[in-house]
């Protein structure tokens, strides 16, 4: 409700995270409003008036303390709700690794993203892999694993429209998943400071429906390029690689 008014939900779990955000907003917003109301009403009600001395309250009296103690019941209850929801979403996104339809490799370095897409054979690390710089192509409604690597320092693969974020650590390959649900072009940011070019790592994420994506794969696979299939997107790819 709140988040998707400023940013589209483009993955299967984006809506879950947005719902969690809404619930938290409600569960902390209501106590906040009550506390603020009490706070301001006390300030104005107990403004100094001549002839009305302040009360002497130590804060150990049961009649006053009970209100403080009672307030903990909803707070604990809200905490439990938030924890349960948060852990559920977390499990889904980060702990669980559903079976993938395809796998992409994401390599971060100072200061560019390299994306390795499997070619027409849909197997990574074969001769027909498509390598792009700062541009990731994925198909809609397809479950992807990403294998995240860093070559030099820490980076962070962040796709706000997917509500996805994961640090990349040199020397490690971190596997996670996403499933795009919305076709279009979205932004990718680096979310871990990585040197003076940290602000210069914008990459594009292009989600197409399956047929279009398959066509893109077919056109850009190095094997088909080598076979002499020259077209706009291939030269586009060269241009991107040169950048």
């Amino acid at each position, binding site marked *: 409700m*709140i988040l998707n008014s400023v940013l589209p939900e483009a993955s299967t779990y984006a809506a879950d995270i947005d719902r969690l955000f809404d619930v938290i907003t409600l569960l902390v917003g209501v106590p906040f409003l009550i506390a603020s109301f009490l706070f301001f009403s006390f300030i104005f009600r*107990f403004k100094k008036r001549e002839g009305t001395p302040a009360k002497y309250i130590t804060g150990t009296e049961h009649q006053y303390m009970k209100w403080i103690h009672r307030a903990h019941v909803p707070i604990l209850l809200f905490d439990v709700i938030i924890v349960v929801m948060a852990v559920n979403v977390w499990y889904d996104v980060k702990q669980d690794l559903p079976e993938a339809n395809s796998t992409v490799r994401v390599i971060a370095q100072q200061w560019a993203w390299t994306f390795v897409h499997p070619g027409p054979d849909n197997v990574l690390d074969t001769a027909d892999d498509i390598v792009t710089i700062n541009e990731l192509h994925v198909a809609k409604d397809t479950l992807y694993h990403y294998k995240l690597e860093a070559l030099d*320092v820490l980076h962070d693969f962040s796709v706000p429209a997917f509500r996805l974020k994961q640090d990349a650590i*040199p*020397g490690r390959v971190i596997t996670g998943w996403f499933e795009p649900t919305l076709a279009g072009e979205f932004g990718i940011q680096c979310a871990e400071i990585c*040197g003076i070019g*940290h602000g210069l790592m914008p990459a594009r994420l292009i989600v197409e429906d399956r047929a279009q994506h398959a066509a893109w794969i077919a056109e850009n696979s190095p094997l088909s390029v080598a076979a002499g299939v020259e077209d706009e997107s291939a030269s586009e790819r060269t241009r991107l690689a040169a950048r």
Partner: protein
Amino acid sequence: MAESIPVEHADGHADHGGHHEMSFSEKYIFPLDHKMIAMQYMFTGMFMAVIGGFFAYAFRMQLAFPGINVPGWGVVTPADYNALVTSHGSIMIFWVAMPVLIAAFGNYLIPLMIGADDMVFPRVNRLSYQIFLLSAIIILASFFVEGGAFGGAWTAYPPLSTKAEYSLTGIGSTMWILAVALEFVAFLLGGINFITTAMNSRAPGMKMWDIPMVVWMIVIASILFMLSVGPLLAGGIMMMFDQQLGTAFFDPDRGGDPILWQHLFWFFGHPEVYVVLLPAVGIVADVMTVFSRKKLFGYKTVLYTAIGTGVLSFTVWAHHQFVAGIDPRMANVFTVTTLLISVPIAEMMFVYIATLYGGSITFKTPMLWALAFIFEFLIGGITGIFLGASGNDIYMHDTYFVLAHFHYTFYPIAIIGTFAGFTHWFPKMFGKMMNDNLGKLHFWLTIIPFNLIFLPLFVLGAAGQHRRIYDYQNFPELSLPWMQDLRQLATISLCVMLGAQLIFFYNVIKSWMSGPAAGKNPWRASTLEWTAASPPPHGNWPEGLPTCYRGPYEYSHPDHEEDYWPQNEPA
């Protein structure tokens, strides 16, 4: 004046009360007197705050008006930008919040509030300031070395911070970690002084529950600091060796582990938030009780919640690392512990609001600051829940939402809390009253722009804007016109807020020179420092140290005629 202890000089030396014999340098440059050391910390901290504020101005101008020639700085290059945000964060926490809230108020208030003539180790105290000053000079000097100041964020995650070929600031990185390590040593020395002074040197009759809340809080904060900083100090040495000797503690290419630094850093970093929070909370307790003429609601409750928060703060550090590549199962544990912190903090806030109930409130400048602290910190507190919830943090981590959240905690702590304390104890420190109208003008011109800076940043963060990026024009999703409008609103508010601080400095200088005399106890407060002369002379009570007969917050007591009952007045 209730007095049972005659003045005696431990070595029969005429040093006490004999400050007329001290040379200028003994009194002002190398002082042993706790009040003068407190002033050194206070004004060094304020000077660093001006620098930190100027850095914020420089990089906020770049964000609002990308590429412009920022007046007073010039064009902000990417390297400049990183150095500015890194130094802003480091300076505001280590060289502003800590020296002012812990060292300045701790040094000034602890001996005065517990009825002692000085800290127990005056020379350790002086050494602590000198090391601190050295660390401040090093961090500022790092801007002028080859490669410039360190730009790897105040968290200094390796390998960026350890390898010069990646950070491009070989010397700057080492100067940063050296400065931070020296600052830690300074505060370890200071902390030992605060803790032992409060434990051992209390006035006769002052029992545990008679200690004013601010003293308690500074002591608890010092203990928290002492127990959390050690691993990071060790980590700092390891980092320095990685940078300069070529070891590989944090280098994954040669068998090291970069995540280890994150654990060491946040094991300190999270308790550190409470290290600076607690003194501010203590200041607010003292100010609120005085200006509402109320006893603090639930003295022991406040104390227990502070201790509870402190203990819990050691168990939550990995909520800063949810998406950092730690074992994802760990996130579940840390979500639970993090949300548990809401219980003691909420209790503390309730107790403070309850203290207002039935009061007789006057809105002097210090009280406005204290009330603002509660309200603004409440916002900072509740927005933390969003980030502690692991599932939501996948999205929120490292966005401006985080940035806005912790500015809503640190700003009330370091700025609002400091102004509350400074305006409250100014009459004691300088013997003059501050101009209340100017104080209120300064208050409103600080508080309103503060909210206008950071409320827009919550929105930008929710829209997916990440931190530490020097120009959002490179990101189509982040360069929409309404976003740039919000950035400009934040920057212009910042400029207004920084400009408003001139009112404060004018007020301080004007009041110091020509304000009306304050007298011993202008606020009619009951704690011991108000029984000393304003400003207190060397030795604090040359006529003899006070004795304590009751708790610190006996306001409007039914058995007492006046609405305050000084701690040193015999029953």
